[in-house]
């Protein structure tokens, strides 16, 4: 009973041309797949290549970054072989994306209603009038209060959490098969974070939308995803069911990540627990060699946290 994966990324490499005609691998030969309706998490520190991976999947890499090898098979077709026109038709309609910065990701000079309505005009051939009516519904579905009035609001009149809801409404407007969420809650207040995550989870479960969640925060991933890939220095170093990862991490880097996660009640002995800090060697990507990547990372006790 094998299920066809919705997205199957095979041996993907994204590179940055460097001086002397060499290529720096930003993402190096990674493979993972996402099943229909599944939530898959990519976790890793900043600079590990997880955001670049997501942009490569949706085809929005900015020059001079480019996908140099591998396949991105979505519903049976390799997206790398698609024409830019076909890719555009897919983007937003079948694969949608939410970005990290709710403050700047919306056009400040257009009403949120208009920005949602664009989706219906672009992908469903609606007139602007119909699209605006649909936008009210879309706004209601992400639980923005008083959607009939809020469609006329401009982004600056909304809070960060509300704007991110608008982004979700835009992304889910056409019921995509895959939602890519790149650090969707990082810029938000902690209390709002939980609400927005819950909203994404509920809406996607209800619609059967698969999610590729990018985060540096294992806690966020653990709440949402069935499976998780741990990225480090452009590679996926470990891929597991979320539950297994937490109970029995294999890779030293993952152990480090888990150690860096503050948890109440779990490791409180002798009245205090220690947060583990990972020595980062990722600053200079060009010096990074294959050997270094997989060499056990030094773990050391970092800041002490008193309960």
């Amino acid at each position, binding site marked *: 009973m094998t299920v066809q994966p919705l997205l199957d990324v095979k041996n993907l490499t994204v590179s940055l041309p460097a001086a002397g005609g060499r290529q720096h691998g930003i993402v190096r030969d990674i493979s993972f797949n996402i099943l229909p309706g599944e939530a898959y998490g990519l976790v890793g520190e900043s600079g590990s290549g997880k955001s670049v991976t997501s942009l490569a999947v949706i085809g929005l890499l900015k020059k001079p970054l480019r996908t140099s090898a591998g396949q991105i098979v979505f519903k049976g077709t390799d997206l790398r072989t698609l024409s830019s026109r076909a890719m*555009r*038709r897919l983007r937003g309609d079948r694969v949608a994306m939410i970005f990290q910065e709710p403050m700047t*990701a919306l056009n400040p*000079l257009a009403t949120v209603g208009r920005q949602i309505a*664009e989706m219906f005009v672009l992908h469903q051939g609606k007139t602007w009038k119909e699209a605006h009516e649909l936008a009210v519904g879309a706004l209601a579905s992400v639980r923005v209060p008083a959607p009939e009035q809020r469609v006329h609001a401009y982004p*600056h009149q909304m809070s960060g959490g509300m704007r991110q809801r608008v982004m979700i409404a835009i992304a889910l407007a056409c019921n995509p098969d895959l939602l890519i969420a790149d650090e969707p809650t990082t810029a938000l207040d902690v209390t709002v974070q939980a609400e927005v995550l819950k909203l994404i989870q509920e809406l996607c479960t209800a619609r059967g939308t698969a999610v590729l969640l990018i985060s540096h925060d294992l806690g966020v991933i653990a709440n949402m995803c069935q499976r998780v890939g741990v990225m480090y220095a452009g590679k996926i170093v470990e891929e597991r069911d979320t539950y297994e990862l937490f109970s029995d991490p294999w890779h030293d880097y993952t152990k480090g990540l888990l150690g860096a996660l503050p948890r109440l009640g779990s490791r409180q002995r002798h009245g205090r627990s220690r947060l583990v800090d990972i020595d980062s060697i990722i600053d200079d990507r060009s010096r990074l060699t294959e050997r270094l990547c997989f060499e056990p990372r030094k773990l050391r006790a970092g800041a002490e946290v008193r309960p």
Partner: protein
Amino acid sequence: MLRFTIRRLLQMIPTVITVALLIFIIFSVVPGSFAASMMADGRMDADPALMERMNREFGLDKPLYERFGQYLYDIARFDLGTSFRTRLPVTHMINERVWASLKLAIAAMLFAAVIGVPLGFIAALRPGSIFDTATMIGAVSGLSMPQFWLGLLLMYLFALQLGWLPSFGYGDGGFMHLILPAITLGLTPLALLARTTRAGVLDVLNADYIRTAHSKGMSNQKVVRWHVARNALVLIVTTIGLQFGSLMGAAVVIEKLFSWPGIGSLLVDSVAVRDIPTVQGTILVIVLWFLVINTLIDLVYAAIDPRIKQG
């Protein structure tokens, strides 16, 4: 919007009063009296009795603060005094000429915007291309060009050699007479608009919301039309407003060159013969005009950008 308009209009008042004060000080405190400066040119002998009579006639024997009060009061009644040269009310002389100036300034700005904005826009969409490089070289050249020299060359080529256009004058106020002065005057704002438009569009293209627009599956064309254009417009409109100021400075020279009967050439002629009330009045009108245009621009700005009205 109405409250914003009223607020902006009220904000003009202190600036106008300060400008009036500044002009008043320049012409009243700095050396000697009006009458003395008239006579310094040697057109009249410095006859003390005559000077005193003139001083009284123009109210120059009163203390400064009183004269400034009177001056402001007169301005409020749209009375800018009487020309030393023609003995006509200054408002009358300005009124006769201001429309020609307005026509020239607007034509020049239209020319600049219609050519400069698209050039900058296209250059920004193809950064580094030959078109972009050529436009930017053209822009810096345009900004370095003495406009009256360009006007002289255009006049030589199109009027005197080819005979296609009239070389100078207002004619019957028709379009043909407007072409050369407007193109000449429009050159600097054209170059500047091309430059700022390019910089502004490049800025917008790097914004996060443009990436969002692409993620929606929009074609480049639609991204530009739906999201880039309006955002870039804010900067373009501001530049146009600011450029009106230096445009009116440059207009003085261009009007003189083409014998255009506007307030610019009136100002130059009045400066040459030290017709102080006319100089004062003309400058005040030019400044007022600049302020009005900038207020209008602010209103347009507020209409484009919803964030302004609140701030």
